[in-house]
């Protein structure tokens, strides 16, 4: 009575409905057609939602640039390209003068040195965890390294201020000045003995980007097929040679990508840098001099800047964004040449 005829050839479609619910009155054919229509609608909806999400991610940076340009318009018009080459940041001069050189220099210096210190350390940790560590040691060490990534940057800043800065001031800086002070990059100037310097900030940044680079590199190394290692070992390579010829070569592009990720984080880091770099608005010629980075200056002055100074700070933000973009573009180009030499394209 109203039930689907059992022998209508619908097969599994002819199940009775749940108890208490009147059985479907439509034919299995119509039910199937309805199901296909629902499926197509669902697929369409899914497609649109995914497109919207991707579109939002594309629109967001464009909006960012537009808002930054809008808010820095006063400064862009007033200083023009001279802003990029100006070395003075003085709101009290007549005429008022703002320039980006000391901060761009500081950002580049700290990020590059952080990479120079951080990449070998991270890579060493990644190789240890992926290749050399015994199983019982791997998991704890890996989780401690990943825990570093969860520490907020302010905590790193406090550690830097209370532990690293005095250590640099009393032990490392005098040592460097004594033995390497003849070179311009370790020269000890009159104002550079406080321990707050480009070098200290770079060390903190290196510690902060360590977990990022290490975990991404570890994944890249783990993705190396065993055949690579085995082939090297079978040809008589030592442990180090096998690691070098096998995973390290194969995961080259992954490791490079990890380094770029770390560089991105180092360039944008604010709080930890503010507390350890000395905040001096001058181009630092020696690594032991205090300096200033783009994000640190913006963070300090944003709350109290008005009018033209505010506009100049936003322009610094625009420059920082352009710098990050440039780094990413260059990294992509370099990545293409690396992968062309072989290895995974991960």
């Amino acid at each position, binding site marked *: 009575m109203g039930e689907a005829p059992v022998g209508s050839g619908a097969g599994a479609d002819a199940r009775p409905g749940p108890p208490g619910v009147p059985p479907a009155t439509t034919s299995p054919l119509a039910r199937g057609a309805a199901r296909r229509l629902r499926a197509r609608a669902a697929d369409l909806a899914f497609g649109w939602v995914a497109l919207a999400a991707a579109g939002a991610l594309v629109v967001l940076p464009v909006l960012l640039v537009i808002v930054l340009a809008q808010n820095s318009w006063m400064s862009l018009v007033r200083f023009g390209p001279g802003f990029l080459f100006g070395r*003075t*940041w*003085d*709101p*009290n*001069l007549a005429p008022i003068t703002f320039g980006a050189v000391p901060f761009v220099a500081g950002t580049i210096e700290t990020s590059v040195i952080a990479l120079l210190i951080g990449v070998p350390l991270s890579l060493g940790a990644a190789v240890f965890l992926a290749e050399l560590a015994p199983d019982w040691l791997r998991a704890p060490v890996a989780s401690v390294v990943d825990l570093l990534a969860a520490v907020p940057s302010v905590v790193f800043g406090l550690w830097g201020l*209370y532990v690293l*800065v*005095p250590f640099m*001031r009393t032990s490392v800086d005098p040592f460097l000045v004594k033995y390497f002070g003849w070179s311009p990059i370790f020269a000890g100037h*009159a*104002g550079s*003995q*406080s*321990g*707050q310097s480009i070098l200290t900030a770079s060390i903190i940044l290196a510690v902060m980007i360590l977990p990022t680079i290490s975990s991404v590199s570890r994944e890249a190394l783990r993705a190396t097929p065993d055949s690579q290692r085995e082939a090297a070992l079978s040809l008589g390579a030592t442990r180090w040679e096998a690691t070098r010829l096998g995973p390290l070569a194969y995961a080259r592009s992954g490791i490079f990508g990890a380094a770029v990720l770390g560089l991105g984080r180092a360039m944008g880091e604010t709080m930890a840098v*503010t507390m350890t770099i*000395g*905040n*001096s*608005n001058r181009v630092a010629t020696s690594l032991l001099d*205090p300096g200033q980075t783009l994000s640190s200056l913006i963070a*300090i*002055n944003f*709350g*109290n*800047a*008005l*009018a033209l100074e505010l506009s100049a700070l936003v322009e610094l933000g625009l420059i920082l964004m352009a710098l990050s973009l440039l780094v990413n573009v260059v990294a992509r180009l370099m990545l293409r040449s690396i992968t062309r030499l072989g290895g995974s394209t991960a």
Partner: protein
Amino acid sequence: MSANNASGTNASASAGPSASDKSMLPKSSSSSHMALYAAVVIVVIVIAVVGYGAYAGWFTKKTAATSACPAGTGQTIAGAGSSLAAPLMTLWASQYSCGQLNYNSVGSGAGVTSLTQKTVDLGASDAPLSSTQVSALPAGSTVLTIPELVAGVAIIYDISGVSKGLNLSGSVLAGIYLGTITTWNNAAITSLNPGVKLPSANITVVERADSSGTTYVYTSWLSLENSTWKTKVGAATTVNWPVGIKESGSLGVAGTVKSDPNSIGYADLAYAITNGLAYAAVQNPANTYVLPNVTNVAEAAAQAPSLPAPNAEAGWDSFSILNEAGTSTYPIATFSYVMVYSDLGAVYGSSESHAHAQGVVAFLWWAVTTGQTYSTGLSYVPLSSNVVIADEAAINSVLYNGQTLQSH
């Protein structure tokens, strides 16, 4: 147990995990874990409650009379700005029983910016409003400048073997901050301090990174003392310091001076005393070297010129008590000001209730009257009676949508 096992495995078809399966699951939901979680949650709640209590002043003894509060009791007043005034503001917050003051020590410049953006009721600044700040104010609004304390800016230093009271003059300090004097045993410093053994170490110069009223006061004084400083750097809340490292807030400067040997900095006297830092005896116009303390700073305040009108905004620019006359007068003295809008209803709009406006005004009245009794304990100077009278007139003039709020 084995009998249970057997029956468990026999009946395991659709009865969930059997006992043997259970042994493979992590033993995570045993009662000991539940007890641990409960203990952690309780500890977190206790810490949160105690922390909130400390913040809300449950544990500080309120010595202020809790008798009749004026209209506008129980309001929360938001203030931000000067770190020079912060110690006294914090004490006022814990002692004011007719409302709750929340004060954020973010620096004078940020305090005025917060007031401009209407995120606070009171902006505290040691520097009077500059013309840039005035032009950034909301259209049609007027800000009243109300002095609420007098303080001295101490020159703090940390030299091993040298205690409080090193003699320093304006030209020497200008030389140090310009970078022309780089070592402590420079002839200019040793000549002022015969008998004091100064090291040959480099001077670590510390200054403020953020927009600071203390910087404004100190650089104004240096501009008076040294013409090179005046032309090269000038006086403002943020200047282009020729040398030195910069820290955020007076607390940052005091902390860095305390931890760095052979360093020098400038901060409110209260920070020098609470941090146990040595501070200098500064040369005043009468050629005497004077240590900052309540008496010596009070002598500067006693000679204050006549106050500009409270609504003069940028008209307070030239008002200063630097380098006042007298043999025992401390030369680097300053008023610290509270800025408040003259018509709270008109500026803040519908979010500002009449009761809240009354609360703001009631707190200001308390601060310039009863609040002054707390000043000397923190090495600030209480306002003199003529300044209090001018302040009271200013507070009485604060309106709410055109109506007076206070009428004492």
